[in-house]
């Protein structure tokens, strides 16, 4: 039950995950896994692959992110697969359009296609929509909001698989070039459950980042490491859950 509970809250990719699974007010390619409005800040096309281990053996998530900035906005695509290979698989494919209004306001709309396949049992599919918003209050201070699946799209009553309906708010504050603080609040509307999370990213040198975070609801701790070399980015992260243990994450990106 607990593992279902945890998996229902979609995880961001390694960088955001290491920062306490926060990212509602952050920008970059990784925004596709948190608040797609952050894609509007992208000035280079980029592609990434990621892998996430879960607490339960053989359960994993893998996926791909891609974004192309154009003069009319940024287009993004993602592909995500969660589950136990050959037994239970949830696939999600999404397309995003993100646009900035001036230097301060970013917004995005994402269309998601969800498919659930349980071997020798059933297969279902559905569609959902996410909307995101980010606003820059000061040069180094952002706030963001995201509403995921407001239409309460669901597979079927017969299957206990949930497409989260969630409202999230977040903020990010860059103390200086090498130090970034974040805080997110997430409300799962279908379950009346709120989590508050906070994170930190510290750039030790031009090529290495340390990250850490905390989630207060289940008291999870998060930490990670990021390496950047020219156009390559490699992030590692893990969640440390008090009862369930470790869930490692990997992320590899290339910017064109």
């Amino acid at each position, binding site marked *: 039950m607990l593992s279902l509970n945890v998996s229902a809250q979609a995880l961001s990719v390694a960088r955001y995950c290491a920062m306490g699974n926060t990212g509602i007010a952050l920008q970059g390619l990784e925004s596709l896994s948190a608040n797609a409005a952050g894609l509007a800040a992208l000035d280079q096309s980029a592609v990434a692959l990621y892998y996430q281990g879960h607490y339960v053996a053989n359960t994993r998530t893998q996926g791909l992110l891609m974004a192309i900035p154009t003069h009319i906005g940024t287009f993004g695509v993602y592909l995500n697969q969660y589950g136990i290979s050959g037994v239970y698989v949830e696939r999600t494919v999404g397309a995003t359009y993100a646009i900035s209004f001036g230097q301060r306001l970013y917004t995005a709309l994402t269309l998601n296609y969800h498919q659930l396949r349980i071997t020798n049992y059933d297969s279902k599919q559905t569609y959902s929509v996410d909307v995101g918003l980010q606003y820059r209050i000061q040069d180094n201070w952002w706030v963001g909001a995201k509403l995921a699946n407001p239409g309460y799209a669901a597979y079927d009553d017969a299957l206990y698989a949930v497409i989260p309906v969630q409202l999230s708010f977040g903020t990010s504050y860059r103390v200086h070039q090498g*130090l970034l603080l974040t805080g997110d609040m997430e409300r799962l509307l279908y379950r009346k459950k709120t989590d508050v999370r906070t994170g930190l990213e*510290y750039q030790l040198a031009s090529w290495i980042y340390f990250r850490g975070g905390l989630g207060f609801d289940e*008291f999870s701790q998060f930490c990670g490491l990021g390496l950047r070399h020219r156009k390559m980015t490699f992030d590692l992260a893990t969640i440390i859950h008090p009862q369930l243990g470790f869930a490692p994450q990997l992320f590899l990106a290339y910017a064109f």
Partner: protein
Amino acid sequence: MLFRLCTISVLLLVVSICLKAQTNEDLLLEQLMESIANELPEDVDNTELTERWIYYLHHPIDLNATSGKELAELQFLSPLQVASIVDRRKETGSYLSVYELQSIAGLTADLVRLLLPFVQTDPSSEVTQRRLGDYLKDGKYDALFRYSRILEQSKGYTIADPTKSRYLGSADRLLIKYRYQLPQRLQVVVNMKKDAGEQFFTGAQRMGFDFYSGSIALQSQHRWKQIVLGDYTLQFGQGLALWSGLSFGKGALVQHVARLGMGLRPYTSTNEYAFFRGLAATYALRKISITPFVSYKPLSATFADRVDDHNIYSAISKTGLHRTPNEVANRYKLKELVFGANAQFQSNGLTIGVNTFRTQFAGLIQPREYLYNSYSFRGQALTNSSIYYSYAFQNIYAFGELAKSFTGGLAYTSGLISTLSHELSLVLQYRNYQKDYHAFYNQAIAEGSEPVNEKGFYTGLIFQPSKRLLWVAYVDYFKFPWLRYRVDAPSDGQDMFTQLTLTPNKQTKWLFRYRYRNKLENGDLVQQVSSMAQVKRQQLRAEIQFRLSPIFNMRNRAEWVYYKKADQKERGYLVYQDMLYKPMQGHFSGNFRFAYFHTDGYNARIYAFENDVLYASSFPFYSDKGFRYYLNLRYKLKRGIDFWCRYGAFLYPQKETLGSGLDTIEGKHKSEIKAQIRVQF
């Protein structure tokens, strides 16, 4: 250089204004004590710390000469802050002024203000060729006598029946301290103490006081750094193996999860357990110092049985109280021999050390056969070894210790403090103390009362975006892999703390604090098998300190507590008004508190720091419904002679009896008087 001088003169001007407000030594000591000792138990003798502060107020630390050890002794600086102060000399040369401290990252404005009276940069402080006669002139005698007593008679003093438990002595408390000090040469300490209920020159205490302590310490700048004969303390590493004397737990000083050992020091306090008695010395050879030690002292222990010519004891008593026939019977019954050595290497911010020592008892220790005691120490002797390190590099300070008991388990801790930016510092600490790890002088950071059977991860942040705003927070997650007293299952919990301090101007300070603690405990239902219950305790505090006039300071506090265990809920609150009177001149000074408190029960009790006579400080708890008031007065008879007195009382209007057991008092009042005189010459 010109720019630096200009900057310094501007800083001088600014800080001299605040210094005027700081000239008052007592106020400073109170401020320090309250900031550092927030979670200390009731009636701890803080002499050790207060004396050290007074010493450095009178002999300020030379910023250009210190290796950091003296700064660490002040206790309110974190290891990273100490390292930053020392390292700065390498980067920008000698300090020209103490006010340069303000430009060091990680030193908050508040901290610099506290630190300034303790440091100097004056080159005249350097030791020059002096004769013995010159030193003797610097010698200082210090004698202190303190008397206190609870005025209402408690039940323990009224029982005449010799077969029943009762207090054998009078309710008077006495303390005599004597010091002789030649700075950086010699220190002689003698302490004598009688607790309430203990006999005096009769019975078990026919030698007079119940507790005597003393030491002669020789200090030198040469190879034999220190030799102590008598009572001493040893503090090395992170306290996992060898730490006696005062130590602090988790609190508002977030960076203090990194312990900074003082090494060998003469023991000056009157707490009756955590010290050694014998001979110890520190010999330093360049970057290596070696501290061999031997200690032999009697302990009070609960006698259980005698088998095969061996006395068996179920527990060692650490209270130092010998009031009832039972306590007297157990007094000083178990002899303890401790011997071993420490070796430490120090160079360029790196410290590596090793401890090895053996503890032997003239009796067998066998805790009672409860399941939670399954892994407790049993036997007559124990050998401990530990290795520890600390390393300061740029804005990072890493520390740790790995300890092993033979026979028994392992314990280790490791952590780091990093000043991520001028505004933000991060503290991380991981600890893992196995359930079968044993050490009798283990005072490492822990959630439990003893640092064993615990795993934990601590994250702390200190954020100071401006001089007027300081925010600290920590989150500690801990696990107890084995059962504990009143917890019949492996358990875990969290401790979260946050505090915001606003200083809009030099005269006003606002403080807001919230703490949340969550643990598992046995449920209250009496069943064959205990069920576990979540115990949550939340605490909210708001405080304001402000200056009413140049001689009157005010302090107001309101605090709420909410306790919840399964369906049982208790709430409580406390409000108080303090008034501190401190004229710049004149013989009299004093302070006063009036408090009202109302809690649903003992679980929602609220601890609060109280001003006391010098060297004493108290943290009593306020529980039930009633009033608390006290008055402290200090009178300076003449130069070198000071007199203090204190009256404090609890009034519970709705109660007919107070306390429990032998401490039961008939009536609504519990009041105490205290008088102290100090002579210095």
